[in-house]
């Protein structure tokens, strides 16, 4: 069933997922551009259509590049 492994091989370790970081970078850049254009913060839907990236992926990417998940993590560690 090896032929079913039709996915683009990406053997980079999960923790440094380059594609998610790239998505997050694009999302932040688009957010800034749209903010200037619209004169307000864009919605997730507006960013999603500008980049043609599904909302689900935007959410995942933004979380993946998150710093401490709580201001408390620093205290906790």
């Amino acid at each position: 069933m090896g032929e079913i492994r039709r996915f683009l091989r990406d053997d980079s370790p999960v923790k440094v997922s380059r594609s998610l970081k790239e998505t997050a970078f694009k999302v932040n850049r688009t957010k800034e551009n749209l903010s200037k254009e619209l004169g307000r913060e864009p919605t997730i839907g507006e960013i999603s259509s500008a980049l043609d990236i599904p909302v689900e992926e935007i959410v995942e990417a933004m979380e993946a590049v998150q710093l401490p998940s709580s201001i408390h993590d620093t205290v906790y560690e």
Partner: protein
Amino acid sequence: MSTDNLGKLENRVQLKLLSVPENIGLCRVVVASVAARKDLTLNELEEIKVAVSEAVSNAIIHGYDNNPDGIIFLEVKRFEKGLEILVEDKGKGIEDVEKAIEPAYSSNPERIGLGFVFMKSFMDRVEVDSRVGEGTRVRLVKKWPANGEEG
């Protein structure tokens, strides 16, 4: 427990998870995916995630005193007009809720005591229900803001 008229239920997810710090991130992701409506801004989503992080980290740090064997319950319900989140632990409970939610109060002198302040400033409703020796339940409600062109 108050009621908010949030309209029709669109999605509902319940989680039961171990009180390990890595699950703070998991709760954030779950809440973000259920909450992620097209007409929210990333900042609004981020605020909801911060409120959830605070409630879940309180359950781990205070409720279970960092014991990784505790069970945390998370429930996320998305309605037409808003989001309701419940975070529950069966940990040690809070003796004086009024005092606990005061800004800058912490039972631990090394902590800054702003968790409830964040929850209150980012959510439309914060309710704390706690019993010493039985546990704590925090209910967070966020009404959808009017964003975008129609906003």
